[in-house]
């Protein structure tokens, strides 16, 4: 297919190759290198020479080897068949590769991203004679029980639908219609189309972000919520819980579709997802989680240049589903590895470095990536969103490094992982002091509608306590807790309770793994009640010991494990018992 020689190799330095004698080539053109047909992309063009980054190991590649041009940019194939699939960084299906090359990924393997044999049942909704433009819906394919895949006119195309096939079974590359663009030009339509990964897909307009992406993780939903279409950064040193947090969100959040990008991280983590997701049930649909997940894996031992591309592959796929009116959430673990890939490639091209060896265009690249998130009115008229949750792996856990700092400029929600919390096995180790969400105020209306007005008052009160606790802890560190009056020690007690009973959430526990918003609101209310009534009781003379030794206290500590999401009556009982116990304490001191 590719036989147009665009030049010959001049120099090989790892994945970066200089090419000489360029005749005709385009910037970002997809290329094949050497007799092994390694996949690459043209990333720099200068007179008759060019620079190519190769997405596979370049061992054995030598000067004078030919470089072939594909005549199109590096693109992904978009159409039915992606759901439940695992791809590498440039959208090659890893299962299919394994069928060819067994346990190791060999070089130069060429497998189409979408299965060419499989037939999909297509139901046309557009009709011959319709005037259609890019993004319009031609028809549908029921891809999974829950996902109706809409077949779109490729964005950028426009014309009159000359013909469209009848309902029936088609492969992704069979013709399903003809679009007449003008008098002299027509285009054949298929179930799939291609889209260059570095180009954002167009939409009608951006919508305000008003609905939370519910993750089932209490510290996130209740304290630092993210909006559907929002952007989040999770920075943290190794072992603080970036991957676990992203996996928990991928499992339990209320998105229609998850694109999980394993970018330069462990092979076994991908295997873990592959082993676990199919058997987990999405609580909203009752179907396997794998039926709403697409995996992109460039593990840390796979070629670095494909790591750079994996992020764009993932976001382009997400945008494609957004354009069908889906709410998509992307997990990118870890964006630091992507930035480091940029750094390595830049270094090999001998570009001028800025901070810590990163190229000066790092912030621009980060901004461009996060800009592709959002809640949009798609070209088909429906609303969809892409939320991005990106892990950052700061060297030495130091948040002042360039990737963390630049990312912070372009995201609006920050879940800072804290080494001390992780060391104490307080999971998720999301710091309630360093984290923030700029979405909070626009989410409040949704919450109040969902769980009642009390929620915001409870939340505010508890956040305030957490901040007061810090100052009190400083005193305790100097003079010991005995120096504080009971009213203040009670604040410490309530904060400890809130941390143990609410903020800590065990991802491995069947019941605790996720909490509905109703459960979260009730749990929060119980703890806020303990605080309000308890501090009243102390003022009227009750002792701290008395409050802590109340039987209901242990029930509160363990309510997250004991009360299941689908029957919250246990929480009502605990609340009633708490009120009664407090009544008794008060009666004693009345």
């Amino acid at each position, binding site marked *: 297919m590719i036989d147009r020689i665009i030049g010959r190799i001049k120099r090989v330095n790892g994945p970066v190759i200089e090419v000489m004698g360029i005749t005709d080539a385009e910037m970002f053109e997809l290329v094949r290198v050497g007799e092994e047909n390694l996949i690459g992309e043209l990333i720099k063009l200068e007179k008759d020479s060019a620079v190519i980054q190769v997405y596979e190991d370049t061992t054995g590649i*030598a000067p004078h080897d030919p470089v072939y041009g594909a005549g199109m940019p590096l693109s992904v194939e978009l159409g039915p068949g992606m759901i439940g699939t695992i791809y590498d960084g440039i959208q090659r299906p890893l299962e299919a590769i394994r069928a060819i090359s*067994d346990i190791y990924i060999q070089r130069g393997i060429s497998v189409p991203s979408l299965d060419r044999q499989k037939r999909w049942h297509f139901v046309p909704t557009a009709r011959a004679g319709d005037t259609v433009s890019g993004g319009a819906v031609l028809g549908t394919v029921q891809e999974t029980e829950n996902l109706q895949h809409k077949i779109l006119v490729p964005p950028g195309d426009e014309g009159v639908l000359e013909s469209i096939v009848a309902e029936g079974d088609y492969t992704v590359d069979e013709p399903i219609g003809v679009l007449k663009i003008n008098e002299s030009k027509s285009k054949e339509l298929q179930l799939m189309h291609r889209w260059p990964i570095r180009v954002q897909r167009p939409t009608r307009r951006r919508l305000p972000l008003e609905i939370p992406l519910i993750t089932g993780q209490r510290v996130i939903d209740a304290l630092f919520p993210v909006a559907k279409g929002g952007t989040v950064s999770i920075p943290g040193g190794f072992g603080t819980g970036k991957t676990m947090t992203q996996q928990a969100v991928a499992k339990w959040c209320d998105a229609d579709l998850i694109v999980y990008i394993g970018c*330069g991280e462990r092979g076994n983590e991908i*295997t873990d997802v592959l082993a676990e997701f199919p058997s987990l049930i999405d609580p909203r649909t009752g179907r396997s989680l794998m039926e709403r997940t697409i995996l992109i894996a460039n593990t840390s031992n*796979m070629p670095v240049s494909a790591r750079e591309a994996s992020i764009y592959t993932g976001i382009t796929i997400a945008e494609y589903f957004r354009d069908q009116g889906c709410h998509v959430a992307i997990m990118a673990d870890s964006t630091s590895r992507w930035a480091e890939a940029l750094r390595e490639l830049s270094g090999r091209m001998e570009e001028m470095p800025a901070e810590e060896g990163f190229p000066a265009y790092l912030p621009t690249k980060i901004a461009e990536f996060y800009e592709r998130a959002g809640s949009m009115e798609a070209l088909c008229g429906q609303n969809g969103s892409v939320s991005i949750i990106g892990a950052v*792996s700061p060297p030495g856990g130091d948040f002042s490094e360039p990737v963390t700092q630049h990312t912070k400029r372009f995201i609006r929600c920050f879940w800072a992982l804290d080494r001390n919390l992780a*060391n104490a096995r307080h999971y998720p180790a999301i710091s309630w002091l360093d984290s923030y969400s700029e979405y909070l105020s626009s989410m409040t209306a949704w919450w109040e509608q969902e769980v009642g007005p009390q929620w915001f008052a409870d939340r505010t009160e508890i956040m305030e306590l957490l901040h007061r606790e810090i100052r009190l802890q400083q005193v305790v560190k100097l003079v010991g*807790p005995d120096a504080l009056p009971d009213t203040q020690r009670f604040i410490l007690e309530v904060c400890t309770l809130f941390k143990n009973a609410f903020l800590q959430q065990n991802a491995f526990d069947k019941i605790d793994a996720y909490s509905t918003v109703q459960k979260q609101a009730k749990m929060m209310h119980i703890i806020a009640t303990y605080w309000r009534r308890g501090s009243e009781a102390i003022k009227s003379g009750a002792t701290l010991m008395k409050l802590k*030794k109340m039987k209901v206290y242990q029930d509160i500590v363990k309510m997250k494990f004991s009360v299941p999401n689908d029957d919250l009556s246990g929480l009502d009982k605990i609340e009633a018992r708490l009120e009664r116990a407090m009544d008794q304490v008060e009666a004693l001191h009345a």
Partner: protein
Amino acid sequence: MPDAKNSRLLSGREYIGVDKIDGPLIFVRKTHPVGYRELLECVDKNGHVRLGIVLESSTTAVVAQVFEGTSGLTLPGTRVRFSGEPLTLSVSREMLGRVFDGLGRPIDGGPPQRGDVERDINGMAINPTARQYPRDFVQTGISVIDGMNTLIRGQKLPIFSGNGLPHNELAAQIARQAKIRGTATEFAVVFAAMGVKHDVAQFFVRSFEESGVLDNVALFLSLADDPSIERLITPRTALTLAEHLAFTEDMHVLVIMTDMTNYCESLREISTIRGEIPSRKGYPGYLYSDLAELYERSGMIKGRPGSITLLPILTMPNDDISHPVPDLTGYITEGQIVFERDMNGRGIYPPVAGLPSLSRLMKDGIGQGMTREDHPHLASQLFAAYSYVKDVRNLASVIGEEELTPLDHDYLEFGKQFEQRFVSQRKDEDRSIEQTLDLGWEVLRTLPVEELHRVTDEEIEKYYGA
């Protein structure tokens, strides 16, 4: 060297004279088109052959690194031959019980090694869909590992140590005692030494000898007095054999690599000479990917019975865990066993720091049917309590122990017992997992029952003794 390769080498063209020598690097101009990472032979004026590989190849010049170093090479007197192939190792089961240099050549005086298969020492990326997620509990007999940072077969779990700390003793103890309970399987140890002294290598040899397993061990030694550049290849040769033993010969292989800090320093040396832009502390930006290429070769594969468990040892410069070598390692490996100098000073062996140590794979390998049903909660409770001990100790150092509350006194006592009875053990003490867990409960009894938030009421009743 097998004959096949020799003939291939000789068929290559020979270039007389090199254009520049800089540290371990040589520059050769005007060659035929030479492939990236191709193996080369460099013959000095005395006819001695050294191996190297191509780091960069262009129409004008080739840059290569010479593993045995360049000392004694001259510009006009050096001859270079390119092999047209990457560096391979010919591997077989017969390599067990033998000693090799860092490039895989026998140095034990035995016969030349004849392999079954030639494998590219760089290995290839394992397809994540082919991996089997590791879940089998390995009992090391060491409480702080089995109880709190459980080792799983196929895991990569490094020891972050410091100069003069007993990391070799711990690694040797693990190698001696590690077992999967209830199974008898074929196992092998592959040992790679990078830049360590002779006595370290000797220590391991003796330890393997004493436990009668030396016939199942292959040693790859690139010691402190060997050229530093050879260290870059040593872990790759060792892992190439390990892959063969695990995934072709179906064995369970434990790979011990020491000291990875020396490896990283050699990498930095090459990078600096090549004038690459450094990231932190002069280490190249690709240190992460380079280490990952090594460590990711461990694991298990679907449908194959063997496994590679990786136990790299590294010394943290200045005991600083945020130094790039331990830091990047921790980002790649599946947890870490961190040593604490202070505990060592207090006579606690193994001096494993309670809080920064972690086994990421233990979650799926412990609990009912694997170790014991109370294990996950017990471990979590011990971590939580021990982390509070640290706070109390800090507080005590400010306000004095007398000023502490009774509860805080309980915590101090817990901390003491935890370190001295649970963590501390003899170098030949092999505790069963039940002993370890029971001991965990025993030290927890220093705390009042209300403090135990992370264990269930049933567990308290059964093990704490209400």
